[in-house]
């Protein structure tokens, strides 16, 4: 049974590891951190496959969901060294912090890719991830809904609005 699970895991890893790594790298802007989060994401899948606490019907959605949560946790920890930690430490505030788009310079991207990534980064926070997941990674609205904890309909609306915003921002809507 163990070999079967390992084979299944290796297959998923081979298919999805780049997409998960990319999703992490674009958001945390540090290769080491992105590798750490990618590893932790797949480790959770690896353990879930063994534990079988819940059947994983869609491993792709599972992986993006875990990575998304780990990234949010990473931002929360990162925030601990900040002005807020001194001024409002009793409130334990955490806030989702968007990535500085300019760090995309370090990803080794070609001009069109960098430009598109910059523009996706400029989208409103509600559209940014749905657009990225749909347009770049090709996930379905159902999968995006699961990852972001919203309904498939809401995900679909955000994708459509975001894509239209993206076309305006890129100047490709003429």
């Amino acid at each position: 049974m163990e070999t079967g699970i390992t084979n299944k895991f290796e297959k998923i890893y081979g298919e999805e590891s780049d997409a998960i790594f990319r999703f992490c790298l674009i958001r945390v802007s540090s290769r080491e951190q992105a590798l750490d989060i990618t590893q932790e994401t797949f480790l959770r899948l690896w353990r879930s496959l063994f534990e079988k606490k819940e059947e994983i019907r869609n491993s792709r959605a599972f992986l993006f969901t875990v990575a998304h949560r780990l990234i949010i946790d990473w931002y929360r920890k990162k925030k601990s060294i900040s002005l807020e930690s001194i001024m409002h430490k009793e409130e334990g505030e955490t806030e989702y912090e968007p990535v500085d788009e300019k760090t995309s310079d370090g990803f080794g991207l070609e001009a069109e890719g960098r430009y598109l990534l910059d523009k996706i980064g400029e989208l409103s926070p509600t559209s940014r991830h749905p657009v990225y997941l749909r347009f770049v990674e090709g996930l379905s609205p159902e999968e995006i809904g699961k990852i972001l904890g919203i309904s498939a309909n809401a995900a679909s609306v955000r994708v459509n609005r975001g894509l239209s915003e993206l076309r305006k921002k890129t100047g490709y809507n003429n």
Partner: protein
Amino acid sequence: MSNFEEEKLNRGAREIREIRMTAEEKERVLKNILSSSPMSPLPVRSPYADYFHTLLSGFSKKHFAYVAVFCLAVVLGGGAVFASQGSLPGNILYSLKVGVIEPVHSVFIFSPETRARYQSNLATLRLIEAEALKSENRLDIIKEKKLAALLEKHVENFSKIMENHGREESVSENASDDIVINFQAEMNAHARVLDFIGQGEERIESEPTANIKISKTARDSATKVRDAFKNNMEQREAEETPHKYENRKNAVQSIIDSTAIDINRVSADSSPVKQKIIEDTNETLNQAREFLREVDEENEEEDFHDAYLKLLDSESSAREAGIFLETGLKWREKNNKEE
């Protein structure tokens, strides 16, 4: 949308999908996972664990001592370690924070970029601590000297990491631009905030209080780091990729615009102190705009080095304005609440 434009979008998406792990990284991560026990909650090695062994071989006794003290601190007082995170000079836990936790943490940071950012963050944190103390009228000469000495140490560490530029295991050019700009903006903005804090509404007509030692240290550090960076820049190949300028220029413009929006948001209901903060922010934003205009002039004259330096100066001023506005207003509001 025409097919050509749709194709440009699709090409962009394809290029983003080219971001991948290297074969070596992929194999290392997989090996780490498969070698862990799937049923055990024990953590697996970081994908950067290989570097750890190399580092350990070069560990000095001092480093081991730090680790030992750190482990002891965790075992005996995990709560104290956690509690020390927000401590300020004068607090019994502050020495633990700056003498043990921060140095130990820095030992476990491997990439030069992250190390440089960490030292830059620590330098900023020292200034925020000075702001916190000053806002409560607790920044006496002893504490200020201590903070200024720590700040100098962080700047020295930061400069050493940045000086390795061009050597193996050094900060990449793109990252070094961002790191230096950010450092410069943080130092200058917080130095200005420090000069403002503690002023009553009645004193705002006059200039901010004379520079205190730590704000002077911050300003001098920003200038020193900027000068060293400028020297390094002169040894670089001239940047001939116009899109890089354009992207950066757009980014600077968006920082300026977003700070201008923030100013409009707060300017309706403003006390004299707030007005002064807004006025100073506007001045810095205008400086950023002026640098941006000069970028075009230098570009027309095909002086790409100077154009890029102006662009970085513009970005630094734009960031400084944003940090100054946000931090200045936050301290002001905090003081108002307490009054």
